[in-house]
């Protein structure tokens, strides 16, 4: 950081400025909005995974007092466009994703009828009065069987269940596999997950007929992308749409989409001339908000006997559900791009097939494609170490690029910006007291206990990204305005929803302007004030959005120097600036401050010729590259033989996200991210039965980590700045999730290794472990339970 850094906010673990309203319960989430004349929408959803709709009877619902309207697909679909997908993958087959179901339903939860009424209770009562006659059809639920010739079709009109195929091939894969001493093969199932933000989705749409303008409040991560996409669905021009994102109660990627409900409420508000609100129930959330992961991969790693890894091959099937949401096809391609992990592989071949099934769509869920890559390569590295009799840490070190080799080009074609993987690994081993941990394992094993140590060295991709790799621009916008009073208004095009950028951005701007944080307000999440933005996902807000703010600050400072020069009788070049004060070189006693400059800039009586009034600047930052945070997680677990329960006895995380704006926030992101992985590794999974019924539709059936599941962490960091942006920051929103996953899984598999158990798929449920242990120790073959997929 340069200029105006006197406050030293950067790097300080400051309390968040957004917290007072949240801890007092006076923040505004979508469901807290109250508008005059507000109507409430409720949606009747399909209980079938696949069925023809033979008829819909809505008369009784329409006649219920208080009901303003009941609409079927026939009523709404012709008046609206389709739900958009931003992927431009060649050969992609995209079904028509209408607002409500047409003559068929394709997944449990598919919206069929929408009711609008004077109260949520009336709307809910009306749903019970609607009769839908379904003719149920065979459902496609297994993505591998979906590729067989005689499989039923998710979308019969498409003639195939294949949505797309994608190939990433670089280098002499076959030649390197021929040279290999060994090939490590493993099939890995990355189970489907449900994001389960504690606040379900919801929106309120209000149409101003006089202006012809629409305002949509919605719990989303992407108000700006919505403003770009919504015109194509509801027929209102972009410049007549205002999207407001109030407080958002968690996203994790699940609110990174244009959903039918947002478009439909907008349409209904216009149609009915009253504002319309829809708040998702938890069951609806589980059924009809995107899911994550869900890939099956057959991986092969070519290795030399000394542990050198040569090349990797993967054939992957992604079960993408029945429709394309915004980034559905893109997510599994990120797995391909990151499949090399931290290692100097020379060649890669990643074959991906996206398959339609009668389930909810998958899309970005915390980590979005990278956890699958990291988990796969880190499992393979452990399997390689085990087969070759090498130390898991040493085999990793052997294949890391050296710090001097960055920027480092991977076999998949990415350019890792900066890294020192050795240092993070070493630090984690120190914090974990590695040698003592090994002794502890040895003692436990001698006592017959199942104790394991897991290691993961990860790298991920953040700060998305240059526009050429993004569907709708990878830049970010930011504006800084010095007000007439000397206060500072910061407007960001990113849309924080819990990450704390109102604080970290105020830190960044406060330092650079030399203005106290109390004088800074950070605005976000309203397209009327934040004119442009590409929003928050992929851990990009600080790296890309923060940089746009820095650019704007620098523009203001440059202009302020001209103004200060004019006021002090010197040229701008002769003006020094520090600590929020401007003076002519050598004359610091005659300094003027931002307050004075603000007044002068807007009163505009003493401006030099050709200088515009005001002190406001906005900038678009276009990064040249993504950022690549990395780190090492080390986990020790003990598995209880008789139950299969896993207890985490040690957790060490060393993450390198570059310089940390606010270490408290970084720690919060890391811990939260680890919790998502802890859930994924040990118990979370979305279960559809063989007929496509969703069996994990409530919190009572979808287990998530609770406080009691959380180990005491040892958290450390290293700092390797990124050359991709001036602050050198990398991003940390998903790092915990990406790094934790293989570390915990490897620890559990290490605990079971003495029994001769090589690999088990996630989640590592107690029953699954118990069965594996029983089979190896009691020697009895267990029946595969119906309920364990």
């Amino acid at each position, binding site marked *: 950081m340069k200029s105006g850094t006197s406050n030293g906010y950067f790097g300080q673990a400051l309390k968040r400025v957004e917290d007072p309203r949240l801890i007092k319960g006076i923040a505004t989430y979508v469901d807290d909005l109250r508008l005059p004349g507000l109507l409430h929408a409720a949606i009747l959803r399909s209980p079938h995974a696949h069925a023809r709709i033979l008829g819909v009877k809505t008369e009784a619902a329409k006649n219920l007092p208080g009901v303003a309207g009941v609409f079927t697909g026939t009523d709404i679909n012709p008046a609206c466009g389709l739900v958009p997908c931003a992927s431009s993958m060649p050969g992609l087959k995209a079904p028509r994703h209408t607002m409500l179901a047409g003559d068929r339903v394709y997944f449990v939860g598919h919206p069929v009828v929408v009711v609008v009424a004077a109260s949520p*209770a009336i709307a*809910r*009562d009306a749903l019970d009065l609607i009769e839908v006659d379904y003719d149920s059809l065979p459902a496609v639920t297994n993505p591998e069987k979906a590729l067989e010739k005689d499989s039923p079709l998710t979308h019969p009109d498409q003639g195939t269940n294949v949505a797309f195929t994608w190939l990433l091939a670089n280098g002499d894969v076959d030649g390197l596999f021929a040279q290999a001493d060994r090939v490590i093969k493993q099939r890995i199932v990355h189970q489907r997950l449900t994001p389960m933000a504690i606040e379900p989705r919801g929106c309120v749409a209000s149409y101003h007929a006089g202006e012809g303008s629409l305002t949509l409040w919605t719990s989303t991560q992407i108000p700006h992308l919505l403003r770009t996409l919504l015109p194509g669905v509801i027929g209102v021009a972009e410049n007549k749409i205002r999207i407001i994102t109030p407080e958002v109660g968690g996203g994790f990627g699940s609110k990174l989409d244009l959903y039918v409900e947002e478009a439909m409420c907008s349409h209904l508000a216009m149609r009915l001339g009253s504002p319309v609100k829809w708040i998702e129930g938890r069951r609806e959330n589980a059924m009809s908000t995107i899911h994550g992961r869900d890939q099956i991969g057959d991986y092969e790693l070519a290795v030399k006997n000394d542990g050198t890894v040569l090349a990797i091959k993967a054939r992957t099937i992604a079960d993408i559900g029945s429709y394309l949401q915004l980034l559905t096809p893109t997510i599994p391609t990120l797995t391909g791009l990151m499949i090399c992990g931290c290692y100097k592989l020379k060649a890669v071949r990643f074959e991906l097939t996206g398959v339609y099934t009668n389930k909810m769509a998958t899309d970005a869920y915390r980590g979005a494609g990278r956890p699958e890559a990291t988990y796969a390569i880190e499992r393979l590295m452990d399997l390689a170490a085990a087969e070759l009799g090498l130390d898991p840490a040493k085999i990793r070190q052997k294949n890391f690029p050296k710090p001097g080799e960055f920027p480092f080009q991977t076999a998949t074609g990415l350019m890792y910006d900066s890294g020192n993987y050795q240092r993070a690994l070493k630090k984690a081993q120190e914090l974990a007291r590695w040698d003592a941990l090994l002794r502890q394992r040895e003692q436990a094993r001698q006592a017959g206990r199942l104790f394991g140590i897991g290691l993961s060295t990860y790298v991920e991709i953040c700060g998305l990204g240059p526009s050429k790799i993004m569907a709708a621009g990878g830049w970010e916008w930011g504006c800084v305005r010095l007000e007439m009073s000397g206060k500072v208004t910061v407007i960001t095009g990113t849309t924080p929803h819990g990450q704390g950028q109102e604080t970290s951005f105020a830190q960044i701007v406060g330092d650079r302007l030399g203005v106290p944080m109390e004088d800074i307000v950070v605005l976000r999440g309203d397209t009327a004030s934040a004119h442009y933005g590409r929003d928050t996902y992929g851990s990009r807000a600080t790296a890309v959005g923060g940089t746009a703010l820095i650019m704007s600050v620098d523009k203001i400072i440059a202009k302020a120097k001209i103004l200060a020069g004019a006021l002090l009788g010197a040229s701008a070049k002769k003006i020094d600036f520090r600590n929020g004060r401007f003076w002519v070189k050598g004359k610091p006693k005659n300094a003027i401050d931002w307050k004075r400059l603000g007044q002068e800039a807007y009163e505009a009586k003493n401006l030099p010729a050709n200088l515009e009034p005001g002190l406001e600047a906005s900038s678009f930052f276009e990064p040249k590259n993504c950022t690549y945070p990395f780190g090492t997680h080390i986990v020790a677990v003990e598995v209880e033989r008789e139950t299969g329960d896993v207890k985490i006895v040690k957790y060490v995380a060393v993450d390198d996200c570059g310089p940390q704006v606010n270490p408290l926030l970084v720690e919060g992101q890391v811990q939260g991210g680890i919790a998502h992985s802890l859930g994924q590794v040990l118990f979370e999974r979305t279960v559809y039965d063989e007929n496509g019924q969703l069996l994990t539709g409530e919190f009572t059936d979808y*287990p*998530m980590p609770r406080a009691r599941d959380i180990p005491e962490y040892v958290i450390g960091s290293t700092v390797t700045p990124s050359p991709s942006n001036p602050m050198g920051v990398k991003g940390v929103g998903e790092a915990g999730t990406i790094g934790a996953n293989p570390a915990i899984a490897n620890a559990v598999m290490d605990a079971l290794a003495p029994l001769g158990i090589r690999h088990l798929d996630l989640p590592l449920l107690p*029953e699954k472990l118990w069965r594996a242990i029983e089979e190896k120790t009691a020697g009895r073959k267990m029946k595969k*339970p119906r*309920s364990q997929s």
Partner: protein
Amino acid sequence: MIPAAFDYSRPQTLEEAVNLLAQHGEAAKLLAGGHSLIPALKLRLAQPKTVIDIGRIADLSYIREQDGRIVVGAMTTHHAIETSALLEEKCPLLPEVARHIGDVQVRNRGTLAGSIVHADPAADWPAAILALDAEMETVGPDGPRVIAAKKFFVDLFQTALRSDEILREIRFPVTAKSVAYVKTVQRASGFAIAGVAVVVDAPRMTVSVGITGVAAKAYRATAVETKLAGQSLSAENMAAAAAKAANRVEPLGDIHASSEYRAHLAQLNTRRALVLAASRA
């Protein structure tokens, strides 16, 4: 999230409540703490025409010793049981089981009677009710009636309580400290995958074992009890007996645990509960 509409009445006396129940019959549901009924109302799985709230009937919430037995009023919350010094002293299995139910908020509101009348096959209380040979006193149009624990749990969500009766009081024997409850929790819902309540009667050399979560209804593990009757509580004896914990029952299987794993946990938790209870003797 929004229940279907219903009528509501809030009787002040048990007699009034019995009359209301007689009047409305099957169309009515009793509301105690509401922690079994209200979730079903919200999902509209239950749509009674009338809800009779017995929460304000005076003196239905009590824990006392009476004629050498422990009596607990129908409206007594799990929390009251969890924190009762009397129970800790005279019937310690009850506070131990209470601690395993749901979470703090649920225990603050949910009631003993509400839970056992709902007869969820994975609820915690039935294991204790069975192991302790509790007695349920009901009141109906024909006056009071006492139902023994063994006859109370009829089937999945079904008890011996008639639709015109109200469970008024549950009676437990005074026991020694040699009791235990060992539960494998379904981590999403908090219900039991396998919950085993054990009462060791050292002087008589008998044990009683109640198991919940495993089958369609909670049951007494009589094979375990028979095997241990008159035997010393050695580790081997207890293990051998515990192996019979799932004999003659059909364990349920679902996405959280297969029937095979449930049977295994029934045996394991029985052994562990026996060992724990014996250690407390």
